[in-house]
């Protein structure tokens, strides 16, 4: 009978522990429900917002996409950028720029590119203006030395090429550079 009574205490303890555990579980579930509910409300609001401002948001996305060069690899992106820059310099009858690139880390979607260029001050200014149209290029540092006596300017630019890596089957290998004909 003693062992039976002891068992009764044990049973009472086990049953109470179970009850408390279920209560705690319920509390967790209530928290989860509230959390999911909050997320759903936010999603609902976002959907309404997206529906109301769809066109504007699309144009923002398009503009944003221009900040990246869609390529298969960063190295190709660098070549593509160099090609576009050379085209720009050529169109302005400037001497070919000197490029130096930093080593590209695996998995990185950006690459550093240094450009050195010499020429008449007006053309250098036009070159700098034209390069702003290549939106995937982000300027980091720029140094312009002006030799007034010769009306020449020497330009050293440190830039970053922003790439978006894509599958070659879906997209062209290299996105064509922005037109420079305006210059």
């Amino acid at each position, binding site marked *: 009978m003693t062992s039976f009574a002891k068992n009764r205490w044990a049973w009472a303890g086990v049953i109470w522990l179970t009850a408390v555990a279920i209560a705690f579980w319920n509390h967790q579930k209530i928290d989860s429900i509230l959390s*999911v509910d909050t997320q*759903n409300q936010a999603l609902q609001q976002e959907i309404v917002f997206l529906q109301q401002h769809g066109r504007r948001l699309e144009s923002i996305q398009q503009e944003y996409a221009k900040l990246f060069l869609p390529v298969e690899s960063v190295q190709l992106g660098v070549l593509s950028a160099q090609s576009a820059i050379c085209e720009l310099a050529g169109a302005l009858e400037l001497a070919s720029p000197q490029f130096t690139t930093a080593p590209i880390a695996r998995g990185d979607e950006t690459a550093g590119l240094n450009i050195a260029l010499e020429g008449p001050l007006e053309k250098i200014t036009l070159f700098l203006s034209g390069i702003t149209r290549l939106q995937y290029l982000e300027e980091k540092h720029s140094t312009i030395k002006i030799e007034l006596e010769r009306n020449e300017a020497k330009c050293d630019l440190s830039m970053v090429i922003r790439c978006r890596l894509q599958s070659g089957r879906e997209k062209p290998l290299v996105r064509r550079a922005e037109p420079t004909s305006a210059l």
Partner: protein
Amino acid sequence: MATHLNHIVVATDEKIHVFSPGGFRSNASPVEFSLEEISSLPTGMERLPGYGKNGARTLLVVPDLWLKQEFFAFQSQKNALVNAFLERKLKAAYPHLPQINRFFTFSLKEPSTEERGVTVFFLQEQKAFLLNGFLARAKLRPQWITTPALLWAERLLKIERDFKNQGVLLVDLRQEQVFLYFFSRGEFLFSRRLALADGSGRWESLLFEINQSIYLYAQKAKSVLNKICVAGDIEALQKSLSGKLDIPIHRLEPEGNGTSLPRDLSFLEGVWSSSGIGIPSEVYSITDRTIRHELKWKPVQWCGILTAAVSIIAFSSVNLWLDSLLQDKLRIQAALMEKHSQPLAEIEQALDALTHRAGHTPTAHALMHLDAALPESMLIREVKINHETSSMELSAAITADHIDRFRQSMKLFADNLSRQLDLNRAITIEDMAFQVDDLKVNNGGKTTYRISLKAIIP
């Protein structure tokens, strides 16, 4: 007397008789063990009816001599104090019986009586503890331990109005034996077992023994006997005693309906009803303290278990409901996620990037603003722009014929540049440094000053 007992165990000086459930109603023979046999445990235990089953409600009837009563003077009437007092007293008085403090019951003397105190009944026979251990091992641990005298006392209390205030002798005549039980003010004093002699002188010898016992009673109880109750073979006994004792004789009706008990248990026939023996009250039985403790907590335990069980059922129901609710919400979320092809976070990121770019001044624009801000007398030598820190370092030369002209040129340039670049903090002359060491004096009397400037651009 209705009974809810499973087993009745009756012990005599030589044997124990175990009545199985229902056995005491159907006149079935009890299982018998000799007391020597139970000391050689555990052999034969399986012969016990109900052996090994938990929760048996067993009554143990032991001989009157196995029980002892003592009176202790004690002022308090509080049960907890009396219990502790008696446990201490009994342990001290009977050190050879280690379990004695578990097997006792007591009755408190009325506060109005001369001497306040407590009368304690306790098991004093080693065999009783052995038997209790034997039954406990067979899962038949007795919940109540009583004696024939106490069973009679309980019966007399019910049928005799003044039993609590009188001295009573119960004469129970059974076949060739007579049992005498003496009670004083409702409490058992002593009992005797007499063999009834054969022949014509049997009643005289019985009368003699009764007289002797009454004398002993008077000495022990210090009061006179008020009543004699007779049970058993009443006709012959009442006839032989009437007129020979100066005490009223009262006849007790038989309790049972001719239940036949084994010959050596004939002393129980007077209290053995058709349904066996009823559960004795607390005053007329001893319950093991550990059992009493368990019984006291039993309702609490069951109440706790039931409350928790009900809570579990309620909580589980709530849990199921919450689960279905959560699943519904998750389904809604999945549907919303399907609709929501483009998270706002991406758009926010795009906006941030575009805003950052829009706020950034490209080198070409900076040069154009710089050109527009230049006074006639000033020429740019070098421009360094750090787009990460949005800072611009400028090196230029100003040609002036007088220091005031130089100052005016500098001020004009600072104002123009601040306006052109829409600077948050306007550039002042203080922000410009000029190198005196590099002063160049022209032939025409004009001086060229080389200045440098550092500004934060948008």
